[in-house]
């Protein structure tokens, strides 16, 4: 009864805002009954998988292929997918958590997963890692630590590796008569590149502020000013985002904006328009990640390169920072632990998902898996993906424990994105941008 009341309460609140704003998000559910109660279709055990995309086969084809391979290998288990667009999915998971109807396994935003864990609705996967030591070994420590609470509970496991940075088009740089960036290219050198590209009418860095989250390459830069050495103090209220190091960094972003690094319609462009500018050869660089490798293989081919972003001579922190971290985690509903049959099926699925076979499927689909298996895959026909793999193999470059935004709450995360774009566009001064993040952090 309490759960029903909670669900009604949560639905009521959604309905309240829906009375003012209708048609806010699209939802595309594949057929599923959706609860965690034991389900058997004939002799098959059915496990439910909540995903952050409406159509897994089209939008996350690698995951779709892994699921199909798993079902082939385990004919007595069926994976039933419940897909929704990201925002709708996250909100639905919150509602489902309130009513005890979470899918068995589900993708969850990194900023929300710790809250779900605190509310006690997630299964501790430490037991899974003990049961499957091969998986435990295949997942590097920073991958596991990203979804582990301070009391040691493993509340999630990485969905994939999150590799982000700047794509660049060698042909466009050649057209502008300048060298493309490489590991170690400094901020001052980047500014010179920006000016040279602008002089030739080329957009230096494709960005789309309408999708505020699309600032991946610029998040990496934060770590070059010691983000993870400061963030715990900031989150504890002992320090601030508005500190001399971050101020230097935000001034650099502001400097790029003033130098004309971004498209003139950046404010009204989406991430997808920015991608179109890059793939059509209008832009020299594009802030994105490994997930775009497949598209870039087809559109730019051998001319595409991948860069970790500029280094900064006025920082004493490590500059050789790459970004290969855990993406948002897969979580498992705590209710799964109450049903041995279901638990076995879920464990088998996770063991397969983090297997060498699944890793091979990932590499073949231009996705870096969360695991570190050595896999033979022919990358010659995938130049963009090969560029990422090459960047990852760069000697001396290492990744932090997480992407900087993924250790923040949703609200602070949103303000960080807003502040970065605000600084790029000149809407905020660097100091104002940082003060805004502090202000939201104080509200948490």
């Amino acid at each position, binding site marked *: 009864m309490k759960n029903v009341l909670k669900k009604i309460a*949560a639905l009521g609140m959604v309905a309240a805002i829906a009375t*003012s704003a209708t048609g*806010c998000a699209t939802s595309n559910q594949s057929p599923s009954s959706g609860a965690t109660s034991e389900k058997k279709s004939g002799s098959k055990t059915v496990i439910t998988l909540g995903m952050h995309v409406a159509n897994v086969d089209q939008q996350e084809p690698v995951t779709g292929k892994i699921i199909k391979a798993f079902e082939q290998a385990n004919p007595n288990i069926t994976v039933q997918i419940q897909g929704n667009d990201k925002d709708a999915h996250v909100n639905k998971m919150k509602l489902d958590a309130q009513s005890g109807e979470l899918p068995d396994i589900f993708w969850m935003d990194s900023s929300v997963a710790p809250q779900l864990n605190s*509310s006690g609705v997630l299964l501790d996967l430490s037991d899974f890692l003990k049961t499957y030591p091969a998986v435990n070994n295949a997942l590097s420590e920073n991958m596991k630590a990203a979804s582990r609470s301070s009391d040691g509970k493993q509340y999630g496991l990485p969905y994939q590796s999150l590799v982000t940075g700047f794509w660049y088009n060698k042909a466009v740089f050649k057209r502008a008569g300048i060298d493309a960036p490489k590991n170690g290219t400094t901020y001052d050198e980047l500014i010179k590149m920006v000016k040279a590209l602008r002089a030739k009418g080329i957009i230096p860095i494709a960005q789309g502020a309408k999708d505020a989250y699309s600032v991946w390459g610029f998040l990496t830069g934060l770590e070059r000013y010691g983000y993870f050495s400061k963030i715990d103090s900031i989150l504890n209220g002992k320090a601030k985002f508005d500190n001399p190091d971050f101020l230097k960094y935000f001034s650099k972003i502001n400097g790029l904006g003033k130098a004309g690094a971004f498209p003139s*319609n950046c404010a*009204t462009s989406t991430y997808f328009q920015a991608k179109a500018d890059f793939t059509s050869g209008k832009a020299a660089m594009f802030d994105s990640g490994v997930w775009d490798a497949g598209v870039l293989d087809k559109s730019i081919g051998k001319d595409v390169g991948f860069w970790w972003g500029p280094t900064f001579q006025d920082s004493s922190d490590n500059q050789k920072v790459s970004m290969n971290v855990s993406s948002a985690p897969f979580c498992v509903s705590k209710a799964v632990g109450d049903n041995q049959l279901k638990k076995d099926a879920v464990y088998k699925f996770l063991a397969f998902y983090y297997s060498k076979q699944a890793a091979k499927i990932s590499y073949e689909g231009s996705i870096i898996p969360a695991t570190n298996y050595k896999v033979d895959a022919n990358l010659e026909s995938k130049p963009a993906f090969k560029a990422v793999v090459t960047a990852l193999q760069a000697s001396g470059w290492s990744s932090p424990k997480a992407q900087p935004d993924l250790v923040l709450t949703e609200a602070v995360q949103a303000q960080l994105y807003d502040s970065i*774009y605000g600084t790029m*566009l000149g809407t905020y001064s660097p100091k104002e941008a940082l003060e805004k993040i502090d202000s939201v952090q104080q509200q948490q």
Partner: protein
Amino acid sequence: MHWLSKKRNILIMLIPTLIVYLVYMIIPIAMAIGYSFTKYTGIGNAKFVGFNNYIRLFRDHTFWIALKNTAVIFVIAFVLLMIGAFVVALLLNLNLKGKSFAQSLIFSPAVIAPIIVGILWVFILDPQIGLINAIIRSLGLGQGIKWIGGQTLTPVSVAIVYFWQQLGYLATIYLAGLKMIPVEIEEAAQIDGASAWQKLWYVTIPMMRSTISTVAILVITGTFKIFEIVQQLTNGGPNHISETLITYSYSATFTNGEYGYGMSLATATFFISLVVIAIYFGLSKEHSRKEAS
């Protein structure tokens, strides 16, 4: 018929409607108000924080920007729609050639989903890829104007798009009101020697009072809940400078996961729109009273 006239039976027949109204309107509004006094991430239990969200709201720069933008949209859309739709209805009420075709054409934007309207207008208003600036550039009149994405013109553009979308729908409501004015009264005014302007001012408008009120309420409530157009044109950005109350409420609730604060924004929007409606009714009552005396 006797059965129908019994109060008890009337109440019984009203029950289904009342239940729907209660469940989908009253309870959600009451709950939104309740949640506005809490800190809630959508997970676990909401924590009562008293008036903290409202104190934060008054100190929140973005709230004032959203309120200012909503006010700009409201004033422009209200003036344009109240007058524009009435003029269109008057024209459609004349026996002009091609009247039906014109009526269909004017009404057509109202049948397009607001989200599509937003997408459509991006291709007209976008500073870089939009049609208007392309024409300005091709005529050699400069690089164009920041119709959307800037601080000044974005709410004006939103109001214009909303005007374009709603004009035909509201003109149709006005037209229905015009059709209900008895012909005899207009004829009597004509016999008494009233000019076209006097007929409009002393006969048509007073007899359209209830229709005008309906349209006014629709415009007030409509402008306070414009969501999709803003979402498509600018998504409230860049950096919240084009947020309206409702897009900011959505952003705080669902993007930032601050359900309590989002509900305080929704509640504030609700009460502001109530106040605007009350002011409108107060002014029109005063006007009627003066006319009567």
